[in-house]
């Protein structure tokens, strides 16, 4: 069966329905990206999948013994809480030293163990969150706008890391992103949300769909094409990105 699937899922946030009738499936090993404007229910969907938001109606079905690694949008750590990276990675379960070492190496933050979480840069912080998610040896890695606050080269590097992780660990990846051109090129499948699933398919299919164009304009289709041709070129991110959701 699929790793995780939803059946006619309806979600509300603070008493307001944000998502209706969602039926999605995530298969083993695929990278699926969720796009959609602000308030379209992206984060609510992820929170329902990890079990932090109870659905109004419908169901979330997980494969038996499914292991989920979750990377939140941000994490506000109160300044009064002293916490080294190493200590953070040992929450909530104490992990084996070798496992932690493997996770920080896979996430590209092997040297930061004794630093305080509050002293990390934005990119380092997100990678530490990624390392923590990898420690669970997840079948499914869920990322909620994990590159928010990173600059373009930073987020591009972060997504390359995700690709690497998928290659080496074989986990499926489900992510929400605003970095349309980077992410769509890296995805097997794209789900476009706006209160419901308005279109889905391969990045090209979604980019061509009238529903997607109505939301994001036609420009990103062009950007996607540009990215595809030049994605091994360091300055790909210099191209226009002005068609993202605002």
């Amino acid at each position, binding site marked *: 069966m699929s790793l995780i699937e939803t059946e006619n899922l309806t979600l509300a946030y603070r008493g307001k329905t944000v998502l209706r009738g969602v039926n999605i499936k995530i298969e083993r090993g695929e990278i699926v990206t969720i796009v959609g404007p602000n308030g379209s229910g992206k984060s609510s969907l992820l929170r329902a999948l990890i079990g932090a938001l109870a659905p109004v109606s419908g169901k979330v079905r997980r494969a038996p013994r499914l292991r989920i690694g979750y990377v939140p949008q941000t*994490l506000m750590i109160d300044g009064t809480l002293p916490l080294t990276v190493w200590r*953070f990675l040992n929450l909530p379960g104490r992990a084996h030293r070798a496992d932690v070492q493997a996770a920080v190496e896979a996430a590209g933050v092997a040297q930061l163990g004794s630093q305080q979480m509050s002293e990390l840069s934005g990119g380092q912080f997100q990678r530490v969150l990624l390392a923590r998610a990898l420690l669970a040896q997840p079948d499914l890695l869920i990322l909620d706008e994990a590159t928010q606050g990173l600059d373009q080269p930073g987020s591009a590097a972060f997504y390359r890391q995700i690709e690497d992780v998928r290659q080496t660990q074989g986990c499926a990846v489900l992510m929400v992103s605003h970095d349309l051109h980077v992410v769509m090129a890296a995805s097997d499948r794209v789900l476009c949300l706006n209160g419901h699933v308005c279109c889905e398919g391969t990045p090209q299919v979604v980019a061509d769909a009238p529903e997607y164009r109505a939301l994001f304009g036609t420009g990103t289709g062009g950007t996607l094409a540009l990215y595809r041709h030049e994605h091994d070129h360091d300055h790909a991110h210099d191209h226009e990105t002005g068609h993202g959701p605002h």
Partner: protein
Amino acid sequence: MIRAALAGLGVALAAAPLGCFVIWRRMAYFGDATSHAAILGVALALATDLPIFAGVLVVALAMALLLAGLSGRWVSSDALLGVLSHAALASGLVAISLLDGVRVDLEGYLFGEILAVTTRDVVLIWTGAALVCGLLIWRWQGLLMATLSVDLAVASGTKPRREALILTLAMAVTVAVAIKVVGALLIAAMLVIPAAAARPLARTPETMALWAVLIGAASALGGLGGSFAFDTPTGPSIVTLAAVFFALSVALAPMFRRAE
């Protein structure tokens, strides 16, 4: 005097590590409101002939559960806590004054009367402190996880609501054991000040909790000694010394940083 010292140490042992969670989770006002409710608990105990400890425990627990249930619902929790905190204190004072034929040493309940503790009190205090420490140690990892992020806690199989309930329970027990020692008005200080003083000295949550216990214990013993030497009220002396430790810790923190 030995009883007083033991009572003070017991309170520091319970309040200091719990106080760390109080400041990490920004619950200082929550501690205030729960400890102010202790006065209402005293009134309940006097009216029903219950032991003071039991009355305070019941009312503090009710208050803490009420706050946990209401927070974020219809008023900002800041406003809500402000209202309930002072309402509990004021109505408790009114209730005590209405009790017929009871002569009450109100000051003792407001500021503590550590020199009047009996052996039975000391046993109760240490039982309560052991319970609080036991709960915190048992749930330590889950509590930290729930403190960091509710979503992350859920995703990794922790139940944040249960962890919050454990803190609520620990808070009520701490208030109940501390009322005789530092009094309803200063319990929150014993929660917050040692923990805040420990912050600059620590790089992990565990070392911070240990420093908080040390600072809390030193404040209790030093404050007790100081109140003898200078004939000052004991509860406020303990809290004043804790505040001095806080000032020293913050002032000296940059040196610790450089030494690392």
